[in-house]
Each structure stands twice: as C-alpha cells, then as structure tokens.
C-alpha cells in the first residue's frame, strides 16, 4: 500500500519507519528542509520538501494513487486542511489526522474528518497509568458503539473496597470483564466476588460516564467531607 505522511517530525518519522518495515511504500511531505534531510539520511529517499496542504504538491506526490493519508504536523489547521483535501478532493480511502488540541476532535468530525488521534490525551492517559493514585485509566474508545474500555483501580480507603462486584453502582450497560488481583491470575469476577484495595478491574462503560464512575470509586473520607 502507498501511504502519504504529512509532517516529518517525531511522529511522522517513526510512523514512516514502521510502515516501511511492514513493506509499504511511504512518502513524507515536510516543509522544513532540515527535517527532510534527516529523513533522507536515516530512511532513504522517501521525503518531499513542500507544503502538504497544497493541491499542486499533493498531486505531484501521487496522491491519486495513495491508499493511506496521515497528517501528523503540530498544527491542527494544517492537519485539517491536508486531510480534507485528501478525503474530499482525492477520495483517499483511509485518512487519519493527529489532533494537538483535544477540543478539536469534535470540530474535525463535524468537518468530515472522523478518524483522529488525540496525541495529548494519549500521553496524558499513559502518564496517569504510571501514577498509581489515579483510580480510572482510559484504555480504548469504541466510538461506533459509544463505549469506553477503562481500567479501574480500587484504592486504599475506596468506598467500594469490601463490597461485592454486584454492589458496584456502575452506569447502566457497564460490564466488569476482568479482575486483576496481585499475586493471582487474571480472572473473570462473579457478582459476589468481594473487592479488595489494590484490585484492578477492566470494565466496559458508556462513553461520557467516566466522571460518574470516578465519583463512585471515591474514598470514604472524601464522602464524609463532601
């Protein structure tokens, strides 16, 4: 497959490398000559120095036969412009945009670019996952189903420690799928399994209910003071 990447910074560079390793044809379009040089030095002649939002540049780069188009510059307006041209003018089958401002996800979707990756949100979630005091970690969005897969950590003093899985007040249509208890194999919990501090649960919850779940998990101390 032929993949075009707009932006030869860190993300563009490593994405190109991965695609090449998987046997794809790749072209990086990058405005900055120095970045192009680095790509050429490391990955061979797979870069084009130019503006990936210009129709003429994209045409010259063979966008008409591209199978994938991925815009990963640090400017959301550039990523939007490039993706709109790829999708709406050249009908590239797969178009993906990196988003730098989390608020732009909704705007991009409304303007026809539904496949977006929110870089900032991903980094934040990974950092939160490493900090053990965060009770809720977002793992994956199943956007077409309106569901989120999250990791719930039962903290010391949480008001649900000592309660059974069935007594958790999770939002309607939530599913507790896996329980991870230290020193034990992963298991599918029964509704009468009693939760202990330190347990981790992989759950499916409705999109937008993360706040409610987080409140439900609060420590009992918070409850009293609140």
């Amino acid at each position, binding site marked *: 497959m032929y993949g075009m990447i707009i932006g030869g910074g860190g993300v563009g560079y490593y994405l190109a490398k991965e695609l090449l390793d998987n046997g794809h044809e790749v072209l990086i379009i990058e405005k900055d000559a120095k970045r192009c040089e680095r790509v050429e030095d490391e990955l061979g002649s797979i870069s084009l120095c130019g503006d990936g939002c210009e129709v003429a540049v994209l045409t010259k780069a063979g966008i008409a036969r591209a199978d994938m188009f991925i815009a990963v510059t640090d400017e959301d*307006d550039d990523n939007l412009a490039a993706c709109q041209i790829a999708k709406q003018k050249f009908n590239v089958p797969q178009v993906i945009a990196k988003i730098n401002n989390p608020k732009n996800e909704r705007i991009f979707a409304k*303007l026809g670019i539904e496949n977006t990756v929110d870089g900032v949100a991903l980094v934040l979630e990974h950092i939160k996952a490493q900090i053990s005091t965060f009770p809720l970690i977002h793992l994956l969005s199943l956007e077409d189903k309106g569901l989120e897969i999250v990791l719930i950590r039962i903290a010391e003093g949480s008001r649900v420690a000592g309660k059974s899985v069935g007594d958790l007040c999770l939002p309607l249509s939530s599913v507790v799928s896996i329980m991870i208890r230290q020193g034990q194999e992963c298991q599918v919990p029964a509704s009468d399994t009693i939760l202990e501090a330190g347990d981790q649960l992989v759950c499916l919850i409705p999109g937008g209910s993360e706040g409610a779940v987080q409140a439900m998990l609060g420590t009992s101390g918070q409850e009293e003071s609140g």
Partner: protein
Amino acid sequence: MNVIIMGCGRVGAELARLLDAEGHKVTILDTDASSFDKLPPDFGGTALLESATDEEGLQKANITEADAFVAVTREDDKNAMAAQIAKRIFDVPRVICRIYDPLREEFYESLGLEGISPTVVFARLLKEKLEK
C-alpha cells in the same frame, strides 16, 4: 452589521477601520497583541487577543450574534479552518476567507466556503491595467 474579523494584519486592520467608521459593530481577533497597533486610535470596536481556530476564542467574540465572519490571517489553513467553524458550527450567515493558493481556493469553494484569492485577483488587476 455585526462583523468578526480574524487576523489584524494590514488587510484586517484596514477592513476593521472602514467598517467601524461606517458604524458597524466590529470585533477583531489576533494572537499577537502588537498587531493591534495597526488599528486607528479612534477605533470604536473590540480587539480580542484570541485565536479563531479555537471554539472558546470565537465564543468570547460572541460569534453566535455575528452577521458576518472574515478570516484574513496570513495562513490559508488557519483561514479555512476558522471559516469552516464559523459557518458549520456557529451558522454565521456570511463567511468569507482569504486563500492565497488558487487551487486550494477552488477546493474550499467546492466545500461551500466563500474564498478570495489575492493571487488571482491581483494578477487579474495587473493584467487589466496593462491592457488599458
């Protein structure tokens, strides 16, 4: 008329001055505070240090009450994105943006945006002058 202008460069500032002098309500946005130096001392409109590719920035400019939105920063992509947000998300009745690249202007027109390409307009003007 209630007009929001994004980009206080030479063109943005001059348009703001003209509209303000005619008694229109003008709000002009830029992300560089020093760009507002181009506005005349008696400018009666509002100058806001905000980006118009940001929903919040546009809300601060009361975009829901605007009759028209004009995007004239020096970057085509910023103009196109702001214009699309104004038109598609906030339903501003009249939206005009400057697009230097003539090929891109054609494309944005196909998306329903009203674009002006200074490149095309100026070349046409020069040609007319030459032919006189």
